[in-house]
């Protein structure tokens, strides 16, 4: 007779071993190592919650302090490699295999460890892709998660940075896994229940509040006139032309400039209510002036942002909030929203090649993907029409019965021809290819594939790749906006002028934009302080962004 409850029994045994170090579900911070050593088994698949922002740092330190004789060869399945401990455990032998999405701050070290063979890499995923695999072939045995507070039954309040938690818990708790949460405080009653207590097996009161990274704050004082020019072109040449109402923005200064031009430049163009009304977006402080001017109808968030909590509480018509008033974010849902319900993604990148493939890796850094490739891709599962989607589909050259024509999502790359330290953004060959060769990866880490990109905006103009009919046209369209980079100087001038005549390339003057008008006085806020004023004092910027 087959035993259909092997996993369930194993789970019960883990919990029983863990209970020795707990009082009910509650575990003291000092007992974290004992708890983890009791619950974990060699070779376990473990999700150590490392989100884009919120970090289960107390549990990470605990895992890193475990005895590698007892806890070893773990297979880590987590979206973010952010804290040093996330990689320390590989050096210690506690962990061996890794499947992840994003490793921004640890990108250089992870590259060294991959070269050194200390990490057996499964794959670098997009967020949705990794979340999907949690439910198919990367289901965690143990999840180590983070929340703001919990009650004694394990009911969990994640706070505004809910992020990945519901997804991780769903996959673990309902498939015979063990869920261990760290919280900043044990309370009698949580402000709202983000995770029901019957999905949480242990609660650790952390020695200090979990770490949150302010990733989405762009100081308006650092926005340049070049970025303003590019933002003007994007608004007039793309947002207005296609009537983009549902969208997602990347986190660069170029998109921050767009946000800050909505109440000024875009308002003067009469675009209010016609563009940028519905968003999948983290609560960017630079969007405050547009919200306050009545541009924005609603925003769903992947996570929160440091300093925005009070502002969000006071704007429940715009944000998704719980019965307690605070933001409810959810990375998996927001990624899905950005993928299927937005008509445009616009973001920056480090390198674009002659076909339009783009990448943010360099040969010494493996930053991973995060969410941009989900937003920055054309969802073939989409079926609902919208004007921008249909117009883009038509431009892409659909033939035959229009009722059988697929629309296209607009995927826009907003890049200055020369990036940081005057490194050219346009290249013949992506560094990602060299990295893939050195690491023996089957796939080069491409952020947005050429066939998904529809427009490239630089200070020299807009290239509309949808209208290109041949690979040669496409290459010249890209060269035609690549400025004085080698790629740009390699253009065929006659062909570029022909593309301009067909509106495949458009210069600022073709759009009726005078580059001399690109002035910082156009920004609705020129400093963090201005953002605070716009918010009526509700936005509370972190100390590093203050100059008062």
């Amino acid at each position, binding site marked *: 007779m087959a035993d259909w409850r092997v996993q369930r029994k194993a789970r019960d045994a883990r919990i029983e071993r863990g209970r020795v170090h707990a009082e009910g579900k509650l575990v003291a911070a000092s007992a974290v190592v004992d708890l983890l050593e009791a619950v974990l088994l060699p070779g376990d698949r473990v999700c150590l919650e490392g989100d884009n922002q919120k970090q289960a740092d107390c549990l990470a330190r605990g895992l890193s302090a475990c005895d590698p004789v007892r806890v070893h060869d773990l297979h880590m399945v987590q979206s973010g490699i952010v804290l040093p401990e996330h990689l320390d455990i590989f050096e210690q032998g506690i962990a061996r295999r890794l499947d992840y999405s994003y490793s921004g701050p640890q990108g250089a070290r992870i590259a060294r460890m991959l070269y050194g063979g200390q990490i057996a890499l499964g794959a670098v995923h997009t967020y949705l892709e990794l979340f999907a695999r949690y439910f198919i072939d990367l289901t965690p045995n143990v999840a180590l998660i983070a929340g703001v507070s919990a009650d004694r039954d394990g009911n969990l309040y994640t706070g505004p940075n809910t992020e990945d938690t519901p997804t991780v818990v769903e996959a673990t708790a309902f498939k015979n896994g063990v869920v261990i949460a760290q919280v900043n405080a044990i309370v009698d009653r949580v402000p709202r229940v983000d995770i029901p207590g019957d999905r949480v097996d242990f609660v650790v009161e952390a020695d200090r509040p979990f770490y949150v990274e302010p990733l989405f704050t762009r100081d308006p004082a650092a926005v340049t006139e070049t970025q303003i020019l590019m933002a003007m072109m994007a608004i007039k040449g793309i947002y207005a032309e296609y009537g983009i109402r549902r969208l997602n923005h990347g986190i660069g200064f170029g998109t921050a400039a767009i946000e800050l031009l909505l109440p*000024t430049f875009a308002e003067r163009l009469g675009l209010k209510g016609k563009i940028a009304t519905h968003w999948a977006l983290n609560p960017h402080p630079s969007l405050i002036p547009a919200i306050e001017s009545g541009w924005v109808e609603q925003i769903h968030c992947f996570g929160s942002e440091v300093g925005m909590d009070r502002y969000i509480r006071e704007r429940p018509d715009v944000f998704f909030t719980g019965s307690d008033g605070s933001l409810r974010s959810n990375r998996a849902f927001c990624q899905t929203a950005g993928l299927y319900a937005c008509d445009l993604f616009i973001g920056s990148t480090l390198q674009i090649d002659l076909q339009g493939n783009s990448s943010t890796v360099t040969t010494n850094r493996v930053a991973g993907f995060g969410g941009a490739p989900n937003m920055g891709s054309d969802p073939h599962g989409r079926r609902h029409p919208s004007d921008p989607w249909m117009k883009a589909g038509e431009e892409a050259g659909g033939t035959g019965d229009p009722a059988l024509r697929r629309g296209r999502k607009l995927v826009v790359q907003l890049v200055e021809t020369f990036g940081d330290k005057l490194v050219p953004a346009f290249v013949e060959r992506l560094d990602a290819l060299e990295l893939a060769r050195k690491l023996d990866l089957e796939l080069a880490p491409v952020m947005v594939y050429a066939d998904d990109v529809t427009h490239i905006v630089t200070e020299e103009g807009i290239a509309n790749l949808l209208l290109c009919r041949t690979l040669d046209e496409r290459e010249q369209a890209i060269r035609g906006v690549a400025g004085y980079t080698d790629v740009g100087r390699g253009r065929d001038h006659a062909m570029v002028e022909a593309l301009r005549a067909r509106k495949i390339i458009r210069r600022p003057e073709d759009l009726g934009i005078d580059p001399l008008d690109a002035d910082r006085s156009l920004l609705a*806020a020129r*400093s963090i302080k201005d953002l605070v004023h716009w918010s009526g*004092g509700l936005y509370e910027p972190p100390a*590093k962004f*203050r100059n*008062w």
Partner: protein
Amino acid sequence: MAMSPVSLSADPLDQSWYEASARARLDALVDPGSFEEFLGPEQRVMSPHLPAFDLPRAFDDGIVVGRGSLGGSLVLLAAQEGRFMGGAFGEIHGAKLVGLLRAALQVRPAAVLILFDTGGVRLQEANAGETAIAEIMRAIADLRRAGVPVIGLIGGRAGCYGGGGLIAGTCSRLVVSEGGRISVSGPEVIETNKGAEEFDSRDRALVWRTMGGKHRRLIGGADAFADDTIRAFRDAAREQIGKAPAFDLATLEAEQARLEARLDLFGDARDATEIWSRLGVNDPAAVPGLDTDRFDALLARLPEAPHDAR
């Protein structure tokens, strides 16, 4: 748009002082079209020292000097360009200001306005720079004794540090905005010499509440607090010209007494908020968040407020 809490006007007078270049500040500050530059960039009077360090030079050596009218009265003006070497004093830079101040003794304008935006003396030409600081202070004293007010306007990115802070101390009146900072040693210098425990230069809120415009105004280190617009600086400058004190023994003795009292009162305070509390501010933690109107209202309520002398 009318409800915007932040000015979105394109009028040059409504532009941010902090963001504007030295020339943009001068052009908008004086009566329209009245600014006339001396030793302009076309004359290319440049630093003789920077080429020895392979450093780029500026045609105006980072300072613009000239004349203009302010509300119809003749004024001489100097504006430092904080974006060229942090507005630092080199030999030419200093000499242009010294020359302007000495000329003022002959011309007798209604006032001399110095638009500070400086980190102090340029290290590459420190001897010349230090000498210039001394000459400038001497020239200001001579001018003030002759009855010409010297007004300092401080609200640029580089603040007013080092020798600039010393010069500011000799002016008849100082106008400062919230973004403006006045001190001698900068935050990084203090941290380097005394450690991050003494002064954490990365704690920007600490930097501003120790050296920023509101604190300087509250303790009498500046005489007027202006919004960060060229218009606000223009209005404040005109008002302060009229309020400049006589430069005589009585003023100097009053100034000495004022500074001694300040040291007695606040010398042992560990943080600016403690000083504000002793000044009678009920909610010191709220001070950095106050806008100009509410800050002015607070100043008006304080028992110890306006601090004259100079």
